[in-house]
């Protein structure tokens, strides 16, 4: 490829091929439409240019023709819509058992923390062939996590989590851009995604770390005194958190919600918003007390409480062997 004149972006994720195929289809369809219209316009313009004594022939219109060129394009559009929706849905639904990376965006840097505990800034190491789920939030304004080579983009919002995922297919170093304008150094908020072969990646992972994120979370959980109410039996003033994550929760007001990352986050920051059935609104808010990083650790910890209890079809590849058992300190 041309180094300074790229005509096609790198293709380094499973999604890239799907998006490219759809894109090429659309280029062909719209290219044909353009060609049709341009040819007709140019031909008519030349063929029916004004000539002495020749008058234009008045044609009122034609309903069959109008219907034809409304319905056929509509059919094509619907095909595009369905194909696009399928690609979109795939890109929005992280596979279960993905490796998780917590992303905190701020003006103007990316802070990334692996579930295993490695922290990086403006750089993310991932292995080839493993699903990686990004759980992202922003400390200030809206940012957007964009990796052109993965054809993946997701806005990162303050005050909540947004989620994205990818599975890299080709080792290399790829651009990470912030795609939502975020202030002075918006164009400087760039980084790189380093995709490595599994062996190399394992080597990189074995570098210094403070232990898995969930372990950090457990420590915070104890320090903040959460354990006094959220006990591992049914006697606590707060709900038992074992196996909560990913499960439906019955609320005091009758609603059912799924305990996803955003639910855990909200329950820590705004405990009164969704009271679990049978419990009293006694939990204080931790808004302003925990940082985004600590919050991520807490969420990772609560999630880890559900890991052993959810037997699912895990492939050896997708489930990292180092997945921390509940509460255990790895390394």
């Amino acid at each position, binding site marked *: 490829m041309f180094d300074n004149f790229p005509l096609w972006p790198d293709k380094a994720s499973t999604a890239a091929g799907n998006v490219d195929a759809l894109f090429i289809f659309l280029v062909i369809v719209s290219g044909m439409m353009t060609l049709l219209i341009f040819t007709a316009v140019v031909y008519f313009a030349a063929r029916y240019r004004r000539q002495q004594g020749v008058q234009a022939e008045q044609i009122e219109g034609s309903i069959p023709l109008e219907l034809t060129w409304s319905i056929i394009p509509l059919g094509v559009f619907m095909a595009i819509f369905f194909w696009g929706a399928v690609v979109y849905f795939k890109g929005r639904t992280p596979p279960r058992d993905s490796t998780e990376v917590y992303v905190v965006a701020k003006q103007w840097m990316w802070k990334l923390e692996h579930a295993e505990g490695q922290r990086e800034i403006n750089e993310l190491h991932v292995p080839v062939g493993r699903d990686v789920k990004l759980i992202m939030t922003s400390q200030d304004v809206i940012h957007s996590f964009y990796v052109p080579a993965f054809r993946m983009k997701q806005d990162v919002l303050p005050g909540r989590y947004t989620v994205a995922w990818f599975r890299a297919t080709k080792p290399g170093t790829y651009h990470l851009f912030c795609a939502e304008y975020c202030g002075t150094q918006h164009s400087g908020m760039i980084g790189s995604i380093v995709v490595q072969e599994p062996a190399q990646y394992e080597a990189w992972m074995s570098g210094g770390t403070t232990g898995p994120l969930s372990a950090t979370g457990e420590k915070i959980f104890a320090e903040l005194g959460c354990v006094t109410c959220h006990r591992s039996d049914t006697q606590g003033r707060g709900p038992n958190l074992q196996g909560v994550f990913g499960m439906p929760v019955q609320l005091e007001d009758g609603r059912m919600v799924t305990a996803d990352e955003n639910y855990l986050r909200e329950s820590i920051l*705004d405990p*009164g*918003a969704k*009271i679990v059935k049978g419990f*009293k*609104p006694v939990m204080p*808010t931790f808004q302003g007390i925990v940082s985004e990083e600590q919050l991520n650790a807490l969420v990772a910890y609560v999630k880890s409480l559900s890991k052993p209890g959810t037997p699912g079809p895990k492939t050896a590849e997708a489930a990292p062997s180092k997945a921390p058992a509940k509460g255990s300190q790895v390394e």
Partner: protein
Amino acid sequence: MAAVHSEAHGETHNPALLHHFATEEQQRDASSFGMWIFLATEVMFFGGLFCAYLIYRRWYFGDFAAASKSIDAFLGGTNTAVLICSSLTVVLAIWAAQTARRALMIIMLLLTMLFGLAFLGIKAVEYKQKFDEHHVPGASFSFEHESIPGHPDQYANPRHAQIFFALYFVMTGLHALHMIVGLGIFAWLLWMAWKGRFTPEYHTPLEIGGLYWHFVDIVWIYLFPLLYLIDRHP
């Protein structure tokens, strides 16, 4: 001004007929149609606020209910009645113009303005209460330990209550601004009526001004239950 141009036409015209209209009827129809279109704009203007209100009310229902309960619904209800009365005096003023009762028309216009002022006065009392209770969003805002209706053991989240009060003040504030503009329009109508400009044949400004006044009334008819009466059961 248009009157300058009317020499271009030979015929004798009603002085209120502008040069570019063929007939008085066309002019009146255009004016009232224009006002309706303007009101469509106004609906969408408030519509953005109603959209915000709807979304946050769903999200923070309990907090909204608690905040709503802290407002004096009796004052709000009284104000609704005041506005309804003012709408009645407006139609009566138009009826008086149609039937050439100039004195009655002037009295009705005066009454309308009086009701309008009463509305603003009551609104001011209400704002004063909120100010004293530190319920005005901003640095001194405070909504601590206010129970959510129906859940006596649960306090409303002050930040979410603040959003309610923000919407409350923006919505009622914009409404009050419309009332003030309406009062200006009616002062002008009163002056025109005083000068004897309105006849059974020509009182278009009165009808147009009336449309505006009624619209402001309708906005309040929605604001009242949405802001004051979210959840009032004990």
